């Protein structure tokens, strides 16, 4: 079932269209949601709410973007709403000063161990910074594409990306 068929099916209440929507985009949305919120249970809730809104809003989808782009826009809005409602709690047993002493900036990184450390560091960023990094480095979007998704100017996206990387290096000085 292609995208036009899915949208037409959703508009007419076709259960097969809902299944096709889920099969074609469910996993991808779930993964993006997980990267945005950092929590598997919340990611599943966000995915569910995204798909629900999509089903309800299908009559308003005008086909001006790819279906996934539209779905991801819904997910971003829900993710921000979720972040506003969720208290930011950072749990860490690493002392930043000690980390700075033991790892020189730019030092060679061991990918396996530092991947986990980098994931932890991403979890300590503000929602807006984490969001722009996910869009840039996971969704592989250009600056102008991120600007459209976030309804910002390209210059603001560029600036946000810069400060996001700076905040990340502040959390993890070895980067």
């Amino acid at each position, binding site marked *: 079932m292609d995208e036009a068929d899915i949208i037409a099916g959703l508009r007419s*209440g076709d259960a097969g269209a809902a299944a096709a929507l889920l099969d074609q985009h*469910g996993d991808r949305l779930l993964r993006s949601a997980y*990267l945005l919120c950092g929590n598997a249970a919340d990611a599943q809730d966000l995915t569910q709410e995204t*798909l629900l809104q999509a089903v309800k809003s299908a009559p308003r989808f005008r086909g001006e973007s790819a279906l996934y782009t539209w779905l991801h826009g819904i997910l971003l809005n829900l993710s921000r709403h979720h972040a506003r409602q969720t208290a930011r709690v950072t749990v860490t047993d690493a002392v930043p000063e000690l980390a700075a002493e033991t790892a020189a900036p730019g030092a060679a990184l061991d990918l396996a161990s530092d991947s986990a450390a980098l994931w932890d560091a991403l979890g300590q960023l503000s929602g807006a910074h984490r969001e722009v*990094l996910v869009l840039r*480095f996971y969704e592989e979007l250009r600056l*102008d594409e991120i600007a459209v998704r976030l309804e910002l100017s390209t210059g603001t996206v560029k600036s946000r990306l810069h400060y996001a990387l700076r905040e990340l290096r502040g959390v993890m000085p070895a980067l």
Partner: protein
Amino acid sequence: MKTMNCEACQHLLPDDADGALGAEERAALGAHLADCGACREYFAREAALAAQLRATLRQQAEQVRLSPASRARLLAAIAPQRTHAWWHAPACAAAAAALILCAAHFGLRSGFTNAPHSSQDFVCMSTTPDHTVRIEWKSPSHIVIQRSAGWKERRLVVIHRNGTEASGLFVAHPSKSLWK
């Protein structure tokens, strides 16, 4: 060709990565990088971080996927014309002994666009094989929500059926005043 300083050079890195530079800017950037070791080092460091971010995000993302149970639950949620007599399932026996958590007043809080008329108007999408929720309609302004023991962390999402389409979304969270 215009000359470029380090600040301007480094500012153009994301645009260069996007292939968004014009011929003149690209030539000026190349000329500056050819002469400036500090900027070459900056570009290399940023490229290494970008590569590590890509690898980490991809690795993390690959760890999550929809299980068959999750898929079935999601499908039930987004295809509301299907019938779910979920409270008749054996797993829901536990819910019978569950604590009555709240008596929520519908209308302004619930976000439903149509007043519910019976228990059949609802379907809960937050159940799992281990944890169940039962929703009992008492009156248009009184609904009892029960959950099985141990069901503490997940948010409760309930939709109101209205023909083939969910007409409202009801999200309750323990931190909200909805929980009495």
